[in-house]
């Protein structure tokens, strides 16, 4: 019944799983934020996540070492980022389209490797929940905030870190200047290409972790196309969050909480068709984009390849 939704246990459940579900979006969207702030739109996030998810799962499955799995996922994501950087920075290819290419590559490649190396859906023992003395025992609060695994906390930790890097460090200033006015940055001695390489590879690495968080911390399985559009949503969240880490956090939380609510609606057998429930987060995201995006301006050099005037 609808009234079940408002019981305390269910509300706690919705909040707790909402916080957990935001994890992959946060990693991927924060990574994408760095890329876009430096002027590069990476639409290949979904592909990077898929390959990361597979890499982490496969390595964990064969070695039993979760951290080795995450590390491999980071490496795979970074390599995809490196390729993306070469194509968009050196070859100045259209970013949106090459991103779709990398997406298709990751989609096919992760499925191919899955079929060749694993063959069937298996499970792994994912990252365990961290137990905080006292805190985890607090009724309600403990369940919502202190009952998650390390990758979840890592994602939230990333928000203040990336805020600090982007706004309070020289590196952040360089990233922003390259994204706003690469010509001016270049004339002041900033190496535009190097900065963009850095942000795109960082974005790939974080997308790799995003994938790993799905396959070794949240779902603990690998299936073909298991990200099912989450990478694209992550890109959307960057626009949603107006290219600021805190905004991205807000968007990721909103989207995940609605998603979590939707899952609970199904669990509780509330007579709303599941398809309509699944649709809701997307509909609401569009509506919120309509209301918010118009006030904010994108980095001026976003999607513009940089070419030195001779």
């Amino acid at each position, binding site marked *: 019944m609808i009234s079940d939704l408002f019981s305390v246990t269910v509300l706690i459940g919705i909040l707790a799983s909402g916080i957990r579900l935001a994890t992959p979006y946060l990693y991927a969207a924060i990574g994408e934020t760095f890329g876009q702030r430096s002027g590069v739109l990476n639409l290949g996030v979904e592909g990077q996540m898929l390959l990361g998810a597979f890499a982490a799962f496969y390595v964990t499955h064969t070695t039993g070492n979760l951290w080795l799995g995450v590390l491999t996922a980071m490496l795979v994501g970074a390599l995809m980022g490196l390729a993306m950087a070469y*194509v968009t920075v050196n070859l100045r290819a*259209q970013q949106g*389209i090459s991103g*779709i*290419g990398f997406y298709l590559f990751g989609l*096919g490649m992760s499925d191919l490797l899955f*079929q060749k190396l694993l063959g069937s859906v298996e499970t792994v023992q994912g990252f365990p929940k961290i137990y905080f003395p006292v805190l985890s025992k607090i009724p309600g609060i403990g369940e919502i905030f202190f009952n998650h695994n390390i990758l979840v906390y890592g994602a939230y930790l990333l928000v203040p870190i990336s805020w600090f890097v982007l706004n309070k460090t020289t590196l952040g200033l360089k990233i922003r200047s390259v994204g706003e006015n690469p010509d001016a940055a270049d004339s002041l001695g900033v190496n535009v290409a190097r900065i963009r390489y850095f942000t795109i590879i960082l974005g790939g690495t974080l997308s790799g972790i995003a994938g790993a968080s799905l396959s070794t911390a949240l779902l603990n399985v690998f299936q073909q196309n298991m990200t099912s*559009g989450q990478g694209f949503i992550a890109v959307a969240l960057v626009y949603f969050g107006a290219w600021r880490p805190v905004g991205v956090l807000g968007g990721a939380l909103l989207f995940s909480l609605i998603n979590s609510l939707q899952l609970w609606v199904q669990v509780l057998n509330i007579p709303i068709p599941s398809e309509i429930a699944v*649709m809701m987060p997307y509909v609401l995201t569009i509506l919120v*984009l309509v209301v918010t995006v118009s006030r904010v301006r994108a980095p001026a050099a976003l999607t513009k390849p940089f070419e030195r005037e001779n």
Partner: protein
Amino acid sequence: MKKLFQSDWVSRSIDALFPVFATLAALLVGAIMLLFLKVNPLQAYGALWQGAFGTSNAFAETLVKATPLLLVGLGICISFRGDVINIGGEGQMIVGALLATWVGLTFTNLPGWFVITLAMLAGFVGGAIWGGIPGVLKAYFRVNEILSTVMMNAIAVQLMNFLLRGALIDPAQAQRASKIPQTARLLEVFHLPRLIPTRLHLGALIAVILAILVYILLWRTTWGYRIRAVGQNPHASRYAGIKVQRYVVLALLLSGAFAGLAGATQVFGVNYRMITDGSASGFTGGAGFNGIVAALFGQLHPIWSIPASILFGALLVGANSMQRVVQVPSAFVTALNGLVVVFVVSSEIWRQRRQRRRLSAAGQEEESLPPVTIEKVESMEKVQ
């Protein structure tokens, strides 16, 4: 312009071959991947070729697969020329197909040719609605179309599952426990006629005719001129008195309409019912994405998109026979498609260099290329 075309058509033909070189390079990388999988690349590509072109039946299958790619690709030619990135082909195909299927299942007492025509129109309209919404959102609410079309894809999938499991479900399936999300079969008279004794259907011919019409639209009509003008320089277009927002909407609307038609032809020409496995590609076969690839390969030119679609149709059909003969999962071809896209967009830089050199030799101003960038529209919005 005409003189220029005649004087260096050889050089231009070489330009047109760049995507081919890029594809060969991608196939080479694919061959290395195959070696890692301990498969003989020659044998694998041989099986792919045989599966796609080996028999007249195989070739007909290739054309059947190429049809939705071409239709989606035609829409992509329009929108990308208008500097609007439509990634919503999957969703637009689905909604077009839903509306067309509804027509086919509802008006069962009307003559076949009439219902087929009506259904194709319904597909066109369904896709246009699903493309038009992001168009309006972009033009009047400044919502980035990449995001809105991606969201619209996700919404369309749920809409499809909702209807195919509910209102439109095959009555036979509704009684079974399996409840496969599919509609009832269309009446025999509503099937798109076959062209030759294979599965090749009228949709392929329609697609080719539309390719010619889209060419005429883009280069011989005011609408087409304005769409391209807005795509190349929204500033100048605005000062020239073009209602930029209107043409942004039109570009997305038409783009969606062609994808919707692709969805309708899948139902009326291939499956004779709408069926899915609950995912978008379960119905579209990924044509909404692969159509983008085909159009790019055809350099966003409707006529060049015809051979490009056949090439990618062949890859898709060949993938199945490759899976049978050398046991390489067809996912390999998805990855290969991705590589082709990356290599083709990367090869643009050399093509542009050649073009620049040629034009400066001819003492002309640099010819502008179809730009696919967001920043132009962004800067356009600043003017508003």
